């Protein structure tokens, strides 16, 4: 099958901020995104675990978004406007898809 190159942005983000991020992404008109729960991790803010958390703020998610390379910069700007001040991490990688018109 013929494959077409796209970019995959992955954002690790706190539960409290997830809704803002998805609303902002929708406003830019991304074709879609996916969110998966994290079970724990470690970063500059120390170590954390999802198990047992009782607060509304607890927990982090990995959100990823497959987009056309042409839109990458615009989206990164949007993402950083929200994520920069928060606990989190943004990374980009290359992927290939079959139906390029979807992204």
């Amino acid at each position, binding site marked *: 099958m013929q494959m077409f190159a796209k970019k995959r942005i992955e954002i690790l983000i706190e539960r409290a901020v997830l809704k803002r991020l998805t609303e902002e992404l929708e406003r830019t008109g991304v074709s879609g995104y996916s969110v998966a729960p994290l*079970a724990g991790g470690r970063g500059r*803010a120390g170590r954390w675990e999802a*198990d*047992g958390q*009782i607060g*509304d*703020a607890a927990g982090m998610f990995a959100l990823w978004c497959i987009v056309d390379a042409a839109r990458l910069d615009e989206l990164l700007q949007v993402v950083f406007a929200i994520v920069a001040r*928060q606990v989190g991490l943004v990374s980009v990688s290359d992927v290939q898809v079959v139906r390029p018109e979807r992204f």
Partner: protein
Amino acid sequence: MLALAVQNLVSPSVLFFGMGLGASLGRSDLSVPEAIARFLSLYLLISIGFRGGAEVAHQGVTPGLALAIVAGIVLSAGLPFIAYALLRYGARLDHVNAAAVAGHYGSISAVTFVAITGALTQLALPYDGYMIAVAAAMETPAIFSVLVIARSGQGRAKGELSGDFLREIALNGSIVALLGAFVVGCITGERGMSSLKPFLLDAFPGFLCVFLLDMGLIAGRGLRDGWRSLSPAVAGFAWVMPLIGAVFAALFARLIGLSPGSTAILMTLGASASYIAVPAAMRLALPAANPAIALTLSLGLTFPFNLIVGIPLYIAAAQMIAR
């Protein structure tokens, strides 16, 4: 008073808290699944709210309700300023973290509320059912005080007061659950209570034990990872602030003429610190604050302090103060 302290200390729920604390300080891998922890906190809020509502339906809305709510709001809005001053100038905590922690101490802890009402019931000291509405009203005002404090800072952190943010705070899931269940309890009263009693009332002490086991586990994790970063002065704050909160609450209670039981509750609310609703607001308003500090203080130090030392003290004081 000592007898009550000892009895509190050996109640199953406090022992389960201790068990969780011990397990996680000892690095056991005991844990409560995330979905269960979230459910338990939803269950507690619904149970507390519903019972408060059913109680109000039973007692009727007494004139004291409005006054007590206003007192609670003023208290919740005012305490963060005192807490901030103590932390910033007494304990030399940095601006952002002092503001975030202060927000937690203006707000209240639902589980501490449960503990005080349990102790009052055991002592056969009556209190007003509407105090749960007061508790709910005290959840959020502290958040707005924090925004004011944050803005006044040396420009290092800026809070935000957008409409979105206000909506997010007001419609926070925990507050909706507590208030919603309160309203359902008000409407369905005795009749609703009788059908929900086995789940919301009889099973409550059991669910509470699992919840406190979990709180112990989290508090232990926080203390284990965080105690190095807590200066003695900051740690001391976690034991001093409850007393200050309780004193202010006692003044307000006296002013509006609450009964001894309700006075003890207002003092406990003033003395307790949030760990369910406020942390989420602080992540939005003050992202630069380290969430572990507030959590460790409120859950690891203040919560057990109130359970063991505070509540017996507040009850004794309330009986002396209130008419």
